């Protein structure tokens, strides 16, 4: 085996391991009973059995990805607006908005949102959406500002319209940084989403909350491991996407 192949294998090892362990944990949690049994109190069940791990994982994924998608759309659009010549005046507004979303604790958002939106998916979605805006917005702005001015000047000089320059030059060149922002936001929200279970949203947090209520460390560990594996999985997926979009980039001189 060549050194390059060995190193490429090594790079994909975390992804492969995360997928393997996650699939085993979801499909056959009983396999892990001896492991979790070592931390659970005497007499309690070691494996959460009130709902299937598999369906809780899908619920968890759904809420994180849905909130992430909407955060991405809003934050990228805001980032585009404030980097246009006519939109620069919206910069303070956009910064305040996205910073507020991050600075306001998701738990507090839930407390405010529940009376307005009821229990379950909706308040959690709002909390995650607000929490995920800042990294995407800031990275979009940084990405668009990193496009060399001569490149844009040349594009204008050749007769490209503003829309075309944005689509064909600015966004592709900013893509690695924008994706890095979405990555951070998504990874953080996999963990943050667990608090949704305190207001009745379906997700892996449910196991952790059950563990906390019944003092069952095995449950807490189980939920935590599943969330962590999801986060690792998506982290690797984003890493691949980022290297795909940045492989043609010149090393900054």
């Amino acid at each position, binding site marked *: 085996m060549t050194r390059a192949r060995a190193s490429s294998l090594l790079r994909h090892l975390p992804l492969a391991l995360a997928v393997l362990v996650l699939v085993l944990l979801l499909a056959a949690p009983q396999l892990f009973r001896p492991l979790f049994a070592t931390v659970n109190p005497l007499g309690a069940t070691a494996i959460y059995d009130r709902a299937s791990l598999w369906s809780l994982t899908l619920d968890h994924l759904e809420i994180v990805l849905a909130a992430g998608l909407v955060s991405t759309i809003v934050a990228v659009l805001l980032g585009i607006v404030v980097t246009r010549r006519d939109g620069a005046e919206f910069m303070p507004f956009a910064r305040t908005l996205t910073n507020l979303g991050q600075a306001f604790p998701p738990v507090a958002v839930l407390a405010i949102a529940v009376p307005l939106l009821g229990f379950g998916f909706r308040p959690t979605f709002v909390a995650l959406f607000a929490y995920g805006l800042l990294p995407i917005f800031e990275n979009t702005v940084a990405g668009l500002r990193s496009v060399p001015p*001569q490149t844009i*000047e040349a594009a204008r000089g050749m007769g*490209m319209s503003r829309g075309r320059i944005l689509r064909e030059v600015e966004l592709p060149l900013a893509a690695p940084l924008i994706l890095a922002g979405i990555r951070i936001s998504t990874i953080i929200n996999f963990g943050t989403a667990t608090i949704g279970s305190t207001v009745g949203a379906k997700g892996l947090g449910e196991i952790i909350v059950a563990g906390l209520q019944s003092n069952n460390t095995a449950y807490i560990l189980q939920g935590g491991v599943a969330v962590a594996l999801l986060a690792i999985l998506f982290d690797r997926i984003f890493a691949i996407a980022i290297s795909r979009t940045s492989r043609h980039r010149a090393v900054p001189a």
Partner: protein
Amino acid sequence: MITLQNLTKIYGGVKAVNDVSLTIPDGELWALVGTSGCGKSTTLRMVNRLIEPSSGSIQIDGVDVMAMNPQALRLGIGYVIQGIGLFPHRTIAENIATVPRLLGWKRGRIAERVDELLHLFSLAPGEFARKYPHQLSGGQQQRVGVARALAAEPPILLMDEPFGALDPITRARLQMEFAQIQKRQKITVIFVTHDMDEAFLLGDRIAVMDKGRVLQVETPENLLRRPQPGFVSDFIGLDDRVIRLLSLRTVDEAVRPAAPGRWREADGAILDGTTGKPVAPVRPGDTMREAASRIIWENTDVLPAVDAGGHVVGEVLASQIWAQGSR
């Protein structure tokens, strides 16, 4: 034909370009020269409306550019800048194809044109077409920049210090390549530079600018012989104007018949018929400057002239060369 009439651009009360009028005939290359901030780039960028004039007008073949859609206008004008501005995320072939693609050319026609341009700029398509800009040297990138500007065969080319960032050898080679292409394809060029040597080498006419105004517009030879006193004379530098005058002409026009037996050919070398010593001859296309430096080096007053095949066709007298460099 490009006509600038009383063109003025005011920035914060300062006239960056002040009442500039120029008429550039088809197929000529005009160099705009001057120090940084003299308004030469601003003038250039008003032609394709990257900057809008404060007053005055620009016409291309009698059509006012202000009446045209800016994007349509720019699609018909090649544009090359010092930073090159190649798209880093696009291959060399894709970069060159930019304007033809914007114009909606068929894929086959674009591919043919890209191939043709890569050949024209000595970039082997097999090697370069699929590379990305950062994989190329500065000189190669600049070649691609010029090729990209010429892709849709624009009749007009605007160039803003296109060769400024290159090393002297690469710059000289690109200048020669570009000069040939420009003359052969009869492209009308406005060329901004602060390098007088470049302006004298490439320019059919040179416009010297200072503080937003055009002070003098002349052919290189007339500019050297009759520069305005003051800024123009200082900027051109009169100390070595003789050398520059000699650079403008080739020795071909000064070759006269030599007496039989004056020069001998032996094994590809040229020998002085009287002394029998080998001498370096002048060749077709050599500038008078090159001949002068050889005459001084050899401490002689005559050099043999050969044709492209290396055969003696006559000789060049030092006095004829000196005459070209005197007032």
